[in-house]
């Protein structure tokens, strides 16, 4: 018997029975171990049918153990009788189940389609990169497995992963790569793609000698690996992409599907056995949280790394729920069968709502406290015990039911998130740990944000619409109590948005001034709340279309520490060209230099100058075309458009060039003068820079600038005049709301009478003669 300690790299079913585990042993060796692992699924229904199923299964070739049991279905009040089917060979279970389900489609099945990694996680507490101790016999069979940390461990010992990075020297969608950039440890080199034979020989040697744990590629799923595999076949020089001997790589086709009301496009996927393949361009939220975030997502959801990298946070949430259900002995439904309990039309009016979304007081405000509930919906689910099988209650009180599946699933994740967030708050800005903590926190955030939506999702196994509605009802209640607490303490509410408030009070300028309010809100709601910061100034923006109409989620502002926050404006949108986003951000950063709201006017001339010079660059053709790319999503397949949108016109160009497009794909293109008015970026032929529609880009840039200047009192017409002329004088003073809650709105510029500002007595005296002529006096 040998004992090893190390990190779990991969786990999958063994065609010969049981599971294969790959362990990164502390000494540096990568061990292939095996473990017997029978898996069980269940069926429920009328006794006669279960008997028939028993007979059917007994006649099957697979070795099985059949037993009558009683198990808990969360959607039923009491445990139900089921037929338990234990399959010795986990790899054979899916096929066996498919056959049984087809034959007995009237029965209800449970635990039927659970991936083996999740089953293992429920039984042994394992997960990707779990630090474990194993006892192994001479045949490399695991006799004992003991995890040494958990999915929730805050700072697990880092695994010394070997990462091999492969990427083509240019974007294969846009050109023809001629070489491969290879990186590992401190080495970097370039391999020519042609001739193929030496390339294959070199890659083979690299894979064998370096033996990476992670193959990190660019376009590996959709281009690089398929190309390499084709070459390997052609030249009969197989590439040992898998670490696991005797198995091919797993290939999944691309597809477009509908999710949460949007078309989503998933490219083809190629996954390996014994090591991981992650394609940076096909990895979920890679831009958001990169490798460390992906590994954290895999860790807390117990999903295999390659799956966590490619699947949405929704499947991560589902995985967590499944593992928790298995751990507490609750049956995992195969299909979502739960239906809504009848409610009256009146009930529907009250329950079918989302979060409270107010219209802000449009304009520029100073010394504004931004207060957020911490993970509001998940907190309500945990503290209010909202779960398909429980009765929800006010988070301030004790409930009647023991904690349900959802609170048990989310509780540890929420704790970890809060702990990490708190630590982030304590670390100094320069600390290297911050980056790692931030991305891991981001992974947690995405999962938590998703789990609420998942509760109401029609296909979610443990979803239940009443629970989903109870969460939003709890959210509305909490926000209203927070509003009442703020108003009781004399604050003016500038804006409310689902789980956040913006408040202002004369004299409240420091975080400490908001502390009593935070405490009061926490007491009234039973939920955690925090101060996001105090804004030196913040501008709430009106609708682009009609500036009398406030918009709930468009604003920008500067915190006391000088950092900028912006929402909903051009630089935050995915479709905005990089150049325009940059200009807008530069303008904001310039204005952020003002130490307080009063100094803002002083910075306007500088901002105008900046804008003018950027526009001059644009006009002079100095902006590279990449920075002018617009990225719009295709809402359907190209053929399905009656009048093609700009994205569709660009997609048509790509199709004509032999590059198929799919619904949900983001199409990058440039605006051109004349016809055709778009140029798809991923076309093989480059664009003629002289054809770029600079006038249109100028217009887009000016609009982005207008967004910034409008709250400062600079109307679009005046802004344009100033840009065209060369006047630098600051033409106005934006009047800001002081702590007295008096504000200036953009309407006030046009309809002075609408402003709630006090009349300046002095200016009134000037007007008194005018007034007295129209007011009859006694």
């Amino acid at each position, binding site marked *: 018997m040998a004992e090893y300690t190390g990190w779990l790299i991969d786990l999958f079913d063994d065609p010969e029975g049981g599971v294969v585990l790959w362990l990164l042993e502390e000494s540096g060796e990568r061990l292939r171990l095996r473990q017997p692992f029978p898996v069980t699924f269940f069926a429920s229904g009328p006794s006669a049918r279960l008997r028939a199923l028993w007979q059917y299964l007994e006649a099957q070739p697979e070795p099985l153990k059949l037993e009558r049991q009683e198990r808990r279905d969360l959607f039923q009040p009491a445990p139900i009788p089921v037929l338990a089917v234990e399959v010795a060979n986990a790899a054979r279970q899916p096929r066996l189940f498919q056959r049984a389900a087809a034959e007995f489609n009237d029965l209800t099945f449970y635990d039927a389609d659970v991936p083996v990694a999740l089953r293992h996680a429920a039984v042994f507490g394992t997960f990707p990169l779990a630090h474990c101790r194993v006892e192994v016999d001479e045949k490399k069979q695991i006799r004992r497995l003991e995890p040494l940390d958990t999915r929730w461990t805050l700072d697990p010992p880092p695994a010394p992963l070997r990462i091999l990075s492969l990427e083509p020297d240019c974007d294969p969608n846009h050109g023809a790569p001629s070489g491969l950039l290879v990186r590992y440890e401190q080495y970097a080199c370039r391999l020519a793609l042609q001739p193929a034979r030496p390339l294959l020989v070199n890659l083979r040697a690299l894979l064998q000698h370096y033996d990476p744990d992670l193959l990190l590629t660019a376009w590996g799923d959709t281009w690089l690996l398929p190309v390499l595999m084709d070459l390997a076949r052609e030249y009969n020089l197989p590439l040992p992409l898998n670490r696991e001997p005797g198995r091919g790589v797993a290939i999944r086709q691309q597809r477009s599907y509908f999710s949460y009301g949007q078309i989503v496009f998933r490219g083809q996927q190629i996954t390996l056995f014994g090591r991981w393949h992650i394609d940076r361009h096909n990895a979920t939220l890679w831009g958001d949280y990169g490798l460390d975030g992906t590994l954290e997502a895999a860790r807390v959801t117990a999903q295999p790394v390659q799956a966590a990298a490619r699947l949405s946070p929704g499947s991560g949430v589902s995985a967590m729920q499944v593992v928790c259900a298995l751990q507490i002995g609750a049956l995992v439904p195969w299909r*979502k069968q739960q239906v809504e309990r*009848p409610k009256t039309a009146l009930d*529907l009016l009250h329950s079918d709502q989302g979060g409270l979304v107010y219209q802000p007081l449009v304009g520029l405000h100073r010394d504004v406290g931004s207060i957020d509930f911490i993970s509001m919906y998940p907190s309500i689910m945990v503290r209010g015990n909202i779960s398909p099988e429980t009765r929800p209650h006010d988070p301030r009180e004790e409930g009647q039911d023991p904690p349900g599946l959802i609170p048990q699933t989310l509780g540890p994740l929420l704790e970890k998130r809060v702990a990490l967030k708190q630590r982030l708050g304590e670390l100094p800005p320069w600390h290297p740990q911050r980056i790692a903590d931030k991305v891991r926190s981001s992974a947690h955030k995405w999962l938590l944000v998703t789990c609420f939506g998942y509760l109401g999702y029609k296909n979610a196994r443990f979803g239940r619409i009443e629970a989903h509605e109870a969460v939003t009802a709890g959210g509305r209640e909490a926000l209203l109590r927070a509003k009442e607490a703020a108003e009781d303490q004399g604050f003016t509410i500038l804006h409310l948005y689902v789980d956040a408030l913006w408040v202002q009070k004369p004299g409240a300028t420091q975080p400490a001034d908001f502390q009593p309010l935070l405490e009061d809100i926490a007491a009234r709601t039973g939920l955690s709340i925090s101060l996001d910061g105090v804004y030196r100034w913040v501008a709430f923006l009106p609708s682009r279309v009609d500036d009398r109409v406030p918009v709930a989620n468009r604003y920008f502002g500067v915190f006391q520490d000088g950092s900028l926050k912006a929402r909903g404006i051009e630089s935050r949108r995915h479709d905005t060209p990089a150049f325009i986003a940059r200009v807008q951000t530069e303008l904001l950063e310039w204005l952020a230099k003002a130490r307080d709201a009063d100094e803002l006017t002083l910075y306007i001339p500088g901002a105008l100058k900046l804008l003018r010079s950027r526009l001059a660059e644009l006009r002079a053709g100095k902006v590279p075309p990449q920075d002018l790319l617009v990225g719009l999503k295709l809402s359907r397949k190209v053929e399905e458009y009656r009048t093609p949108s700009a994205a569709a016109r660009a997609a048509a160009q790509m199709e004509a060039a032999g590059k198929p497009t799919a619904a949900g794909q983001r199409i990058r293109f440039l605006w051109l003068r004349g016809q055709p008015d778009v140029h798809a970026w991923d076309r093989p032929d480059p664009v003629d820079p002289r054809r770029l529609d600079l006038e249109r880009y100028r217009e887009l840039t000016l609009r982005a600038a207008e967004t910034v200047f409008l709250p400062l009192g600079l109307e679009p017409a005046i802004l344009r005049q100033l840009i065209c002329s060369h006047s630098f004088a600051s033409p106005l003073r934006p009047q800001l709301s002081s702590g007295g809650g008096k504000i200036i709105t953009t309407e006030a510029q046009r309809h002075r009478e609408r402003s709630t500002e006090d009349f300046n007595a002095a200016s009134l005296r000037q007007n008194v003669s005018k007034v007295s002529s129209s007011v009859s006096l006694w």
Partner: protein
Amino acid sequence: MNLPVLSLSNQLALVIGPHAAQAQMLDLAARLAAAGPVRVLDCGNQFNVYPVARAVRRQTAGLSEALGRIRLARAFTCYQVLALLEETPAESTPTLVFDLLATFYDEDVKLPESQRLLRICLSGLRRLAQAAPVIVAARPPKPVVYAERVILLESLRAAASTVWETVDAAAPSAEPPLSLPNSSPSPRSGSRSTPLADGVGE
């Protein structure tokens, strides 16, 4: 206005139209609710309370009471439709089923499976129809899947004892009201002796 319910008798009636005659069904729900209890099984996420409220208000001041008499449950997949029907007891309350086939047309569910589930649902609907009138609304499949899935609509048609078809959704003023022929069923509502719904929805 209790007439319509009595003269309908206990049967499975079918309305076919673009948008599964949503506007007419909402109007019908309003009329029934103004007079007594009604059950709604919403299989296509169509039950918009607001037009119902406006229609009820035109008939009676007791808006809350009427809305309180509408009992509604929603199904978002065809398996849920099945489960919903199984859980719904046969009662002497009229039942309106909105957009029954919406989830059965879903390409993610294979046709033989859809057909199997629909068969079971139809027997469930017939069970309910023995105790009270059941009015089912459906729409034809989208052109993309028409050829394959229209058989589901045909099965439903065959199971109904009365079938109405509305015509052009774009010309609401031209919509024939849902009215009940006294004698044999006819494809278009011809006789207006016992109109079920005057006027049209929105």
